[in-house]
Every structure is written in structure tokens, then in C-alpha cells.
């Protein structure tokens, strides 16, 4: 009661301090660092650049500032010797609680002011893909919760040590751990959560859930530690242990601390976000399982019910087996580690099953004993919250399930059969999925999904046929545009939120132009079978992949910022062309992405091809001015660069600066020097037509599967040139 009465008083006193307002001001400004200095979200989406990074920087900056303020304020009464007056009126324990609440209220006020100040700025910077929900959640979770955590940590340090200097050292060490040693552990980064990307065009609930989980785990931990430190608040002239012993007499206090710490420890240990996949990714034991003899799989079905609110999946999968062995067989499936199996039935009867502990590549093994009957229909019921691969735990977000987007891959869709061969070489599958009617279902491959039922609750049942043990399903709030090109029909799927950007960039024309040009000059894409190709814009994932009949376009390549990148094209439409050319030069096994500083990369041939398309679309003068002259200028500057001419000095710079310069130089070499070299090679081999033939042969070359990547040497050999021939100086 006294605490409630004193809270507004202490808050008012806190807000009368100039230091408090300085801290508030600096915290409100701290997101600015996310635009300039501190950019942990490395993806190039607009929300990563203009929302995630500022909010994360705000969290780190604000957290540290409020930690300092906390120590200063808690020490203030003792430093100014007012505590002796206050302790005679109010219990020090009561005041400790009141001060904490006042600091938390000041932090909340600061967060609100920060959000109000940055709302219009973010809106303008992010543009048409700005979303209010993303904005609020990003600031609440990435920034907002950092402030109470810092306050609790700093207050705990002070209450335990009762020394400002020592508390500051302890707080700095705790914050430093989060910013350095713990950065690879998503659960330990209490100050700077592991956020590498936010999607512009689709939702981000998965990463928000992950950050919220981490923050709440720490909130319980630090609240527990604070409660423990509360017991150390000095009373009756006693020291640390004396006060602790006295304050613990009221048993509920240590019990609360213990309860909070237990909750936190449990939450840490049983986190649902990330699996326990083997970190050694060279081990692929699930793929090495020997196939069972005397049993074949003749078909399978799956009914999948994603819960787009909770982010969970419920499903029922059936498998038809022909067991001619005359004995029971143990069939193995790979299942999503986040799923639990509620029942397994063979021909309507429950059969024993077990789920192993070992996990690998985001799968855990389910073993089921199939009875010794000839025809067996095995039904597996499963449900749960999909977990992500722990080897990518600092890049979470892929398991997004919402009304805007979902991607269910292989075991996340339905248990994946591991050790039974198919009948007649295929695993015919019928997959049904129930989703909100606003979502479009896109099976990744040649198959088409169709709506088979519409329900009163606003959902629809989609069905499609598939072949194989796994399968990938995309669904979301997509727009589909069919583009007729020479030879194939492109089904172009992109997020509804991205419509304005795509239209501004002339996406449809760019697709048609690129497909026509590249098909004519280099040949059709190997995966565009059956006369159609799905081009699916995916949620930001760090890259794309292709399969028969479908290819992914990472949304990060089509952001408004990227489409304005003049090194890729003079206007957004040309950048769109650049990104689509990557379907020929850059997808799958085309280039070894091991060394991103290597000048020979997907970018050289892609930039060169973009130049050729632009030259054909407009005229030579335009292409010369906006491409060749630009490259030449950048390369001339590159050869004059101090650190290029004196590489020994580069090594002497601080690591971060070194990296920044070498990245910038690598960029010039990939985007400018290499296209110039290809242009020179074009001249040396006899012109554009000859180069087109060479590139056509390289694109359609026979792959060496032990190292399928196209190398610079292969390119030189195909041109009949040496490295020296293409030297530019």
C-alpha cells in the first residue's frame, strides 16, 4: 500500500532530475546508431535496415543508459546522505521497490516517446512496406524489454554490493558478455537479440516470438536475481549477510526469488524455438539408413492444419505399405523436432512407436513397428510448434506460420519416410491443407494446388498431388501473375505488400525480357519443365533455390532499396532484370559461394548480362554510359586506392575498419572489374555472338558432381584466354 502511494512521488522526483531527461533524450536518439554504426541485422530488406537495426540499437543504447541511470539513482540517496532521513520514515525495502518501479516507469515513458518520435521517420524510410504491427512489436521487443532488463541487472548489482563503482563494473561486464562472447547464443544475448532479418512483404511473428521468449526468460532470471538482491538491502546497520539473514525471515521473499529463477532456468532448458540438431553437418546418418527389404510404400496422404494464430501445425499422415516380408518391420520417419506424435495406428490398431533423442538436419527419428500384414495403412497423428535448426539459431525466422506466410518443408509438412523404398519408383502423395481463405497455396514444384472446399469459418481446403517423401509448401498472401514468354509460362508469385514496389520496378516486363533474352542466348532453365515455371518470392531467407518447375526469389533482392542500387542497374527496372538474371547465373550449383571476396562470383556474369539486355532494350550509348563507363570509373579508382597499392597498411588497421575496406574493394572487383574483364574477353574472342556461344556452352556444360561449380579457369579455358590476357592495366 505504502509502495503504491510512494510510487508517483518517486517518479515525480526522478523526472525532476536533469540527468533523467538527458538519459531519456539519449535513449530516444539511440536508434540513430542503428542507421549509422550498429547494424546487426545484415539482411537488405527495408525492415531490417530501417526498423530492426534502429530498434536493436535503441535497445543496446537505451539499456546501457538506463543501467547507468539506475546505479546513479540508487546510489544518489546514499551519496547525498538523504537516505538517513528517508530510512527514518520509510523502510529501505519499501524504498528499494519504489525506486525500481519509478525507474521502470521512466523506461516505459522513454519507450513511448521513442516510438512516437521514430514512427514517422520509420514510415518515410521504409516506404510502402511499412507495417504498424511490425513497428510496434520491433520496438517493444527489440528495444523496450532491454530497458527493464538493464534496470533489474544494474539494481541487483547495486543492492548486492552497495557500491556504485563496483555495480558499474558488474553491469558493464554483464552487458559486454551479451555484446561479445554470447552473440552466437541466441538465448544468452539479453541485450542484443539475435535478429538477422525482418521480412518486408510477409509477417515476422516467428522472430518476434523468439525474441520475446528470450527476453521473458531473462526477465524472470533478472527479476529473480533482483528479488535476491532485495533481500540484501541493508537494514539496521547490518552488512550484506546480516541484512540477508534478517530479510529472509519472511519466507515468501526467498521463495519468490527461487520461483522466478526456477521458471527462468526451466524456460531456458526447454525452449521451444530451436532443436538440438547435430552441429556436425557432415553427418547425415538419416540419409544413410539402409532400406528395408520386403516392404514398399505405394502411396501417402497428408492432412495439414496450420494454426496461423499460434504458429503451430496439426496433421495426420497416412502411408500405404506392402509388407511382403511376412514379419513385422521397423519403419523410420524423420519428423520435425518440435512435433509430438499423439498416435500411430496400423490398419486401425495402435502400434508401438518411439521417438529418438538424436536430431540431425532439423529432424528426429520416429520408429514405428509395422505389423506382419501384407497391406498396411499406417496413420500418424502429429502436432506441435516447428523448431528451427540450432545450427542456424542466430538466423531464426524461417519457420514463420501466420495468415500472411508459411513455409513447411519436408518433415515440417508430414513425417518423412526414411527407410522404405517406393513402389514403382515414386511416392504418390495427396496433400490437403486448410488455411485462411486469404492465403494462396503454392506447392514448390510442378504441381498445382486447388481449392476443394471453402468453410464457414473463413478457411479453405487446398489439395495437391506430389511425388516424393517430403515436399515443400509455400502459402501466403500472394499475388500471382502469369507471364507468357518465348517457350514457357512464368507464374510469378509475389507478396501483396510488395505490389507497389514490383509495379514501380516493372517486374512483369523485366521477367519477360530476361526470360526471353536468357533463354535465347544461354538456353532454357533446366528446372522449367512442362512449359511452366513458378517464380516464387520467398520470405527473406539468405538465398534461394530451384527445383523442377519452381524457383525462389529471395525478397531481399527485390526491396525498394536494392532496386535503387545503381551498381546493379541504372533504374529499378534494370535492377529487377539483374536479380532475375541470377536465375541463370547464380542459382544452385553455378558458383561456389564459399569465398564471397573472390572476384569471380555470380555477380560478374549477371552484371555483364544485365548490360547486354539493357543495350538491347535501349541503345549502345545508354548502356555504355550507365554500365561500362561506371565500371571503368570504379575500377580506375580501385587501382588508385591506397590500400590496393599498399596492402601491408590494410593489415595494420583495426579489424572492423579492415573488413569494411576489404568488403568495399571486393564489391568493386565483383561488380565492376569482373564485368569489364568479361567485356574484354568478349572483344578478344571475336564479339558478342562468340561470347554468347561460350556462355551458352558454359551454362549447359556437363557437371562434375564432385565440384559442380563454374570456375574462372573454366571460363578462361572456354574463351581460350589466360588470366594475363584479361588484365585491365
Amino acid at each position, binding site marked *: 500500500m*505504502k509502495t503504491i*502511494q*510512494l510510487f508517483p*512521488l518517486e517518479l515525480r*522526483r526522478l523526472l*525532476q*532530475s*536533469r540527468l533523467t531527461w538527458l538519459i531519456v533524450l539519449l535513449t530516444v536518439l539511440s536508434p540513430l546508431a542503428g542507421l549509422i554504426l550498429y547494424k546487426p541485422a545484415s539482411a537488405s530488406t527495408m525492415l531490417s535496415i530501417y526498423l530492426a537495426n534502429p530498434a536493436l540499437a535503441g535497445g543496446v543504447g537505451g539499456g546501457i543508459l538506463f543501467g547507468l541511470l539506475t546505479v546513479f539513482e540508487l546510489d*544518489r540517496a546514499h551519496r*547525498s*546522505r*538523504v537516505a*538517513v*532521513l*528517508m*530510512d*527514518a*520514515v*520509510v*523502510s529501505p525495502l519499501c524504498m528499494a521497490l519504489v525506486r525500481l518501479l519509478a525507474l521502470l516507469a521512466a523506461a516505459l515513458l522513454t519507450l513511448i516517446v521513442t516510438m512516437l518520435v521514430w514512427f514517422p521517420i520509420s514510415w518515410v524510410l521504409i516506404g510502402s512496406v511499412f507495417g504498424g504491427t511490425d513497428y510496434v512489436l520491433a520496438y517493444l521487443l527489440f528495444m523496450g524489454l532491454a530497458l527493464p532488463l538493464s534496470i533489474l541487472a544494474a539494481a541487483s548489482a547495486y543492492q548486492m554490493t552497495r557500491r556504485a563503482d563496483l555495480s558499474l563494473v558488474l553491469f558493464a561486464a554483464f552487458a559486454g558478455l551479451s555484446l561479445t562472447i554470447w552473440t552466437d547464443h541466441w538465448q544468452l544475448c539479453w541485450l542484443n537479440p539475435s535478429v538477422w532479418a525482418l521480412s518486408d512483404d510477409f509477417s515476422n511473428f516467428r522472430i518476434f516470438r523468439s525474441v520475446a521468449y528470450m527476453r521473458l526468460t531473462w526477465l524472470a532470471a533478472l527479476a529473480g536475481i533482483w528479488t535476491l538482491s532485495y533481500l540484501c538491502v541493508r537494514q*539496521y*546497520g*547490518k*552488512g550484506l549477510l*546480516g541484512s540477508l539473514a*534478517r530479510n529472509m525471515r519472511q519466507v515468501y521473499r526467498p521463495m519468490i526469488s527461487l520461483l522466478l529463477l526456477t521458471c527462468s532456468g526451466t524456460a531456458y532448458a526447454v525452449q521451444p524455438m530451436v532443436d538440438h540438431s547435430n552441429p556436425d553437418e557432415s553427418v547425415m546418418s538419416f540419409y544413410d539408413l539402409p532400406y528395408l527389404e520386403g516392404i514398399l510404400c505405394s502411396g501417402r496422404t497428408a492432412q495439414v492444419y496450420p494454426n496461423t494464430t499460434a504458429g503451430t501445425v496439426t496433421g495426420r499422415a497416412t502411408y500405404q505399405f506392402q509388407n511382403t516380408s511376412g514379419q513385422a518391420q521397423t519403419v523410420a520417419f524423420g519428423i520435425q523436432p518440435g512435433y509430438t506424435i499423439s498416435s500411430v495406428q496400423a490398419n486401425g490398431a495402435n502400434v508401438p512407436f518411439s521417438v529418438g533423442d538424436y536430431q540431425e538436419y532439423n529432424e528426429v527419428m520416429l520408429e514405428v513397428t509395422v505389423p506382419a500384414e501384407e497391406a498396411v495403412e499406417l496413420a500418424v497423428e502429429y502436432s506441435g510448434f516447428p523448431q528451427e535448426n540450432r545450427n542456424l539459431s542466430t538466423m531464426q525466422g524461417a519457420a514463420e506460420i501466420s495468415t500472411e506466410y508459411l513455409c513447411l518443408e519436408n518433415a515440417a509438412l508430414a513425417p518423412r519416410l526414411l527407410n522404405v523404398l517406393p513402389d514403382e519408383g515414386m511416392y504418390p502423395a495427396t496433400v490437403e491443407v486448410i488455411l485462411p481463405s486469404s492465403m494462396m497455396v503454392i506447392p514448390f514444384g510442378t504441381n498445382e494446388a486447388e481449392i476443394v472446399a471453402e468453410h464457414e469459418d473463413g478457411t479453405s481446403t487446398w489439395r495437391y498431388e506430389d511425388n516424393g517423401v517430403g515436399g515443400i509448401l509455400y502459402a501466403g498472401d500472394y499475388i500471382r501473375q502469369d507471364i507468357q514468354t518465348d517457350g514457357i509460362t512464368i507464374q510469378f508469385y509475389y507478396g501483396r505488400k510488395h505490389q507497389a514496389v514490383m509495379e514501380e520496378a516493372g517486374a512483369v516486363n523485366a521477367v519477360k525480357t530476361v526470360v526471353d533474352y536468357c533463354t535465347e542466348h544461354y538456353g532454357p532453365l533446366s528446372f522449367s519443365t512442362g512449359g511452366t515455371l513458378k517464380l516464387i518470392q520467398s520470405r527473406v531467407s539468405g538465398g534461394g533455390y530451384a527445383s523442377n518447375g519452381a524457383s525462389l526469389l529471395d525478397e531481399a533482392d527485390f526491396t525498394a532499396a536494392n532496386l535503387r542500387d545503381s551498381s546493379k542497374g541504372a533504374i529499378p527496372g534494370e535492377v529487377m532484370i539483374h536479380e532475375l538474371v541470377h536465375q541463370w547465373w547464380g542459382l544452385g550449383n553455378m558458383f561456389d559461394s564459399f569465398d564471397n571476396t573472390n572476384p569471380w562470383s555470380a555477380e560478374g556474369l549477371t552484371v555483364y548480362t544485365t548490360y547486354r539486355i539493357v543495350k538491347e532494350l535501349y541503345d549502345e550509348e545508354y548502356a555504355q554510359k550507365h554500365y561500362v563507363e561506371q565500371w571503368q570509373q570504379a575500377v580506375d579508382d580501385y587501382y588508385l586506392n591506397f590500400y590496393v597499392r599498399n596492402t601491408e597498411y590494410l593489415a595494420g588497421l583495426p579489424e572492423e575498419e579492415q573488413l569494411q575496406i576489404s568488403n568495399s574493394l571486393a564489391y568493386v572487383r565483383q561488380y565492376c572489374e569482373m564485368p569489364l574483364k568479361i567485356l574484354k574477353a568478349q572483344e578478344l574472342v571475336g564479339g558478342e555472338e562468340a561470347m554468347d556461344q561460350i556462355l551458352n556452352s558454359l551454362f549447359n556444360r556437363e557437371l562434375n558432381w564432385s565440384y559442380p561449380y563454374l570456375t574462372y579457369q573454366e571460363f578462361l579455358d572456354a574463351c581460350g584466354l589466360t588470366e594475363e590476357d584479361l588484365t585491365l592495366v
Partner: protein
Amino acid sequence: MEIRIQNVSMTYPNGKQALKDLNLDLQTPSLIGLLGPNGAGKSTLMKLLVAALMPTSGSIQVDGMPLAKTDRLLKAQLGYLPQDFGLFDELTVVQFLDYMVALKGLRDPKTAIQEVIRAVNLEEKAKAKIRTLSGGQRQRVGIAQALLGNPPFLIFDEPTVGLDPEERIHFRNLFSQTAQNRLVLLSTHIIEDVQSVCDQLVVIDHGRILFTGTPAQLIQAAVGHVGVFWEREVTQGQGLHITSRVNTSQGIRCRAVADTLPAYAQPEEPSLEDAYLYLILQEAIQ
């Protein structure tokens, strides 16, 4: 209000024994002067009474209830001015008092603040920032915060330090008026402060109570032990404690206390200061 201190001892963690087996009863209304040399245990006793310390042994009872269990109740009835205290420098006098009023949970803060500001003569500085105040003015703010809400139990530890003579007289009178229906404990080095206003004295030294009673009783105990003489007459000074020397045209006139006055000393009517010094001297001899 009745406070009973029974067999209270206090030993600090560093081993220093500040109070030894102390027994004392305090009752409303009274203005009790607490006297004793530096390090006698006065401040320790006051800290025990405001529950800033817990006794090592013994008990303190407030209205029959152990202080350890009723410290919240005690704090609600207490006005305390410690010897060494600070203020929030960035606040004005009124803001600081407003803060203390709220801490005390008083119902009519404006009136309470106006009353104490008037009582300590700080009307002109009411809106001044505390950092701009002189030492004496800060001391007056300290007294003001103790008086807020007319608490029934007041403890002042060296309240007149830093005040000019005129202010000291003013505050003596204020304490005297305040104590008419309350329990006021006044600790001081300045005998004049207690002489004129306190109806009861407690003399403490080396953690023990040497005397409890009225000032008159203390003075009475020193009768026959205070004398004056010319310094030139002194033949042997053993057992003689000179309390003052005054230069006169005829030489230096000394005033002293002693268990047995020498023959050359002319007996004098003892003052409270003489009586106090005599008591301390006796303790030192023992």
C-alpha cells in the same frame, strides 16, 4: 508515548562496544537532553531508537510493544534529525519538504509545509534550490523535515550545529514549545541548549548512563565540588579540573571542579556545565 529501554547493549561488527547494558524510560510529555562526550554512544542510542540499528542484546519497547516488530508504527510517529544528513540539492526547499511529506503520508501537505517553514524561519528561501542554501539554512531544512506532521516523538541529534546564536535561541524556544505535549530527545554538546529547556537529562559516557534526572538534580550533585581561585594560588593541581580561565586585571581567575576542593579554592554555585563536567570527571577517576 512511552519508550522503555531494557538492558540494551550494542556492539558494532568491528567489535567496538558502543552501549553497555543500558536501561532508560522515556515518557510523553518531556524534553530530554542527552549529554555526553564524543564517542559516548549518544548517536548509537538515537539510531537504536529510530530503528536504524538493532541492539545486540536487550530490548526496546514502544508503548509496550517490541520495537523490532513495530518499527513501521514507530516511523509513522517519528521526527528525526540526524547529526550527519544530506538533502536533494536539485530540489527547492518546498519540493524537498513536499517529498518528505509524501514519504510520511501526511494528509494536508500544504499546511504542514507552511507550518514548518514558518517555524524554522525559512519563508524567504522556500522556493530556493537547496544547493544555494548556507550550512545553517540546510540545518533548518533538516529541522523542518523532522517537525513535519507534528510527530509525537522527536529526536534531534546536534540540532543547533551551524546556527548563529540568535537562531539557537529561537530553536531552543521552539523545542521547548514542541515538547509540551510530546516526547523530544535532544542530543547536544552545547550545555546551554539543554540548560534552559530540558526538564530531564540523561548523561552518557563510554556506553553507560551516568545520570538521569532533572537539571537541578545534576547541579545539586555538584554542589561543593565547584570552586574559583587565582591561578597563582595553585600549589598542587591533582584532582582539579579547570573548566574556565578568565584574564582579569588582577591575574587569571580559574574555575574548576574537583571531588575535593583545595583550600585555596573558594566554593561556587555550580552551573549545569560544571555539574556535567564534574560527573564526567568522576567517571574518569573511577
